[in-house]
């Protein structure tokens, strides 16, 4: 196992290096961060050259990449050069955004997984029942929904719900524009109130989409297991239905879903972009969009490096989880 993990990590390194190089070339060729500066009136060519020198923009791409890479690995992720804003160190900006997104995404993914698995198992056990039809068609519908529309709908009904609360004399509960400022202070009850109000809507809109995928997947794999020979044998031995389902079928049906979950987890850090935009959270998504709009190469590279590493990391976790859950798979 240890050997397998080590080998996987060693394979990942060149992929990450190549990936970061390609990203660097893409970012470098996509635009010149100094073009805007040059276009402004009153900026002399000498000033532009000075900034270019400072940032090392007048050297070949490969040299710049090498510098970026060595600095990055030593923890110096560079300075953002967004125009009209103060210079900002990339590392804290990216890590802050990652923390914001992480708080949001971890909860919603875990909720989506538990709910999806529960619904999937029930739908499979009661195949072709009304519950199954409702669950399957809901999942199908959610699967075909554009995420941003779901987020917009959830947000606006949240606002209307707040209006109703206010009209009956209560405090507005749900936060629809960014996480609440000033943390969750107050008594325990108040803190819970603020916390749920802040997280409920974005979590819900992230959850609805992931839930659809998990429940469809779990239902399919559960059905496959339920029709397999060893489950029939277990039944024939006279084991109770619930024991057959939970002890025999469920455990095996969980394997593909666990893999999907780990794979998803890496992707979801960059996939919450739309939810963040609609709800005004300043997480990874918002950071990406602002650095694309302002054309901020250092920030973009920091962002890409972090998300790519997360994806690789969780792919590795997926394989390891697969190996632990299913002893038939031999990693070696």
């Amino acid at each position, binding site marked *: 196992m240890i050997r397998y993990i080590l080998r996987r990590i060693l394979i990942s390194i060149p992929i990450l290096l190549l990936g970061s190089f390609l990203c660097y070339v893409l*970012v470098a060729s*996509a635009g010149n961060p100094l073009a805007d500066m040059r276009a402004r009136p009153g900026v002399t060519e000498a000033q532009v050259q000075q900034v270019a020198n400072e940032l090392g923009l007048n050297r070949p791409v490969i040299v710049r990449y090498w510098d970026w890479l060595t600095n990055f690995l030593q923890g110096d992720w560079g300075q953002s050069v967004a125009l009209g804003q103060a210079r900002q160190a990339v590392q804290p900006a990216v890590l802050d955004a990652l923390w914001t997104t992480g708080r949001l995404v971890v909860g919603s993914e875990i909720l989506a997984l538990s709910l999806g698995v529960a619904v999937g198992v029930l739908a499979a056990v009661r195949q072709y029942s009304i519950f199954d039809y409702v669950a399957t068609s809901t999942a199908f519908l959610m699967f*075909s929904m*554009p995420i941003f*529309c779901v987020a917009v709908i959830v947000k606006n009904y949240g606002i209307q719900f707040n209006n109703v609360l206010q009209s009956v004399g209560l405090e507005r509960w749900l936060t629809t524009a960014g996480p609440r400022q000033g943390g969750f202070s107050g008594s325990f009850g108040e803190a819970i109130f603020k916390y749920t109000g802040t997280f409920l809507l974005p979590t819900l809109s992230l959850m609805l989409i992931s839930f659809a995928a998990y429940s469809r997947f779990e239902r399919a794999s559960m059905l496959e297991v339920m029709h397999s020979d060893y489950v029939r044998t277990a039944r024939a031995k006279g084991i109770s239905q619930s024991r057959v389902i939970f002890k025999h079928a469920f455990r095996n049906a969980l394997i593909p879903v666990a893999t999907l979950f780990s794979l998803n987890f890496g992707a979801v850090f960059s996939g919450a972009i739309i939810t963040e935009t609609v709800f005004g959270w300043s997480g990874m998504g918002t950071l990406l969009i602002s650095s694309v709009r302002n054309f901020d190469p250092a920030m973009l590279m920091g962002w890409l490096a972090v998300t790519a590493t997360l994806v690789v990391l969780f792919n590795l976790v997926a394989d390891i989880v697969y190996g632990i859950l299913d002893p038939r798979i031999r990693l070696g």
Partner: protein
Amino acid sequence: MANVNLTTATTAPSPSVDSSGAHEFDATVTRTQGQLVLRRFLRHRMAMVSFGVLVLLLLFAFIGPLVWSYDFEDVSSKAYQAPNGTHPLGTTQVGKDMLALLMRGTGYSLQIAFVVAALATVIGVAFGALAGYLRGFVDNALMRLVDLMLIVPQIAVAAIVVKGFSGSWYVVALVLAGFAWMSIARITRGETLSLSQREFIEAARAAGATTPRIIFKHLVPNMIGSITVNATLAVAAAVLTEAALSFLGLGVQPPDTSLGVIVQENYGQFITRPWLFWGPFVVLVAISLAVNFIGDGLRDAFDPRQTKVRA
């Protein structure tokens, strides 16, 4: 019946049914694989309904603008009208007719989605079949390329390319296709790996068939089922991804429009003027549901055994 080896008899041909036939072959109804698939697809009710919906949407998007009296760039109408006789879906902030906008947006979204699916399928099948058939070094190299593409977030690269180069629809389509071919390549590779162990491939190789011939004449036709199904699913995915990108302002650029752009421009009016939001929303969901159902129908048609156990 020179092609008899290519045809399959239906499961229960009964000679007595049609004994009046002049030719002996009339007694047994033989159908090609293609006819069988087509028959099963035509009998799949949801898929046929969805197919109808898709055709209607295509007509709406590409014939509609020729008939409809407003152009999507026409800003001469009064702004923010509620749905009425002249503007069935109302008008937007700048006085554009919503119906005309929807026609144009649907057309663009569909156009991009079909181009993406076609490109992704061609690239994915070519790479997957090559990797699976040649194995060894080629396989390793191509699959590492797939791994590489999978670690880079699509939305980021699409955003950078659109911002840095151009937001024309074909650039958006190219970027999306660049990130849609990997899953098709993986599936094709898997199937090629198992197919190329079979005798008929060995026979073809022994007969001296070249690699391209084996891949395109022998392997690909045998995988046509999963290729078609995955191409359909790629269309659905592309519609949603394009809409999401445009919603973020990183896809199709105004003044041109797509469904995502329409939603993005109007979602602030959700409570006061809900029709501006629900129009594009319904069209988007309709496209993606219809295409998904067609994919489901195709999967059942190509592989009737799978119908019972399916998500």
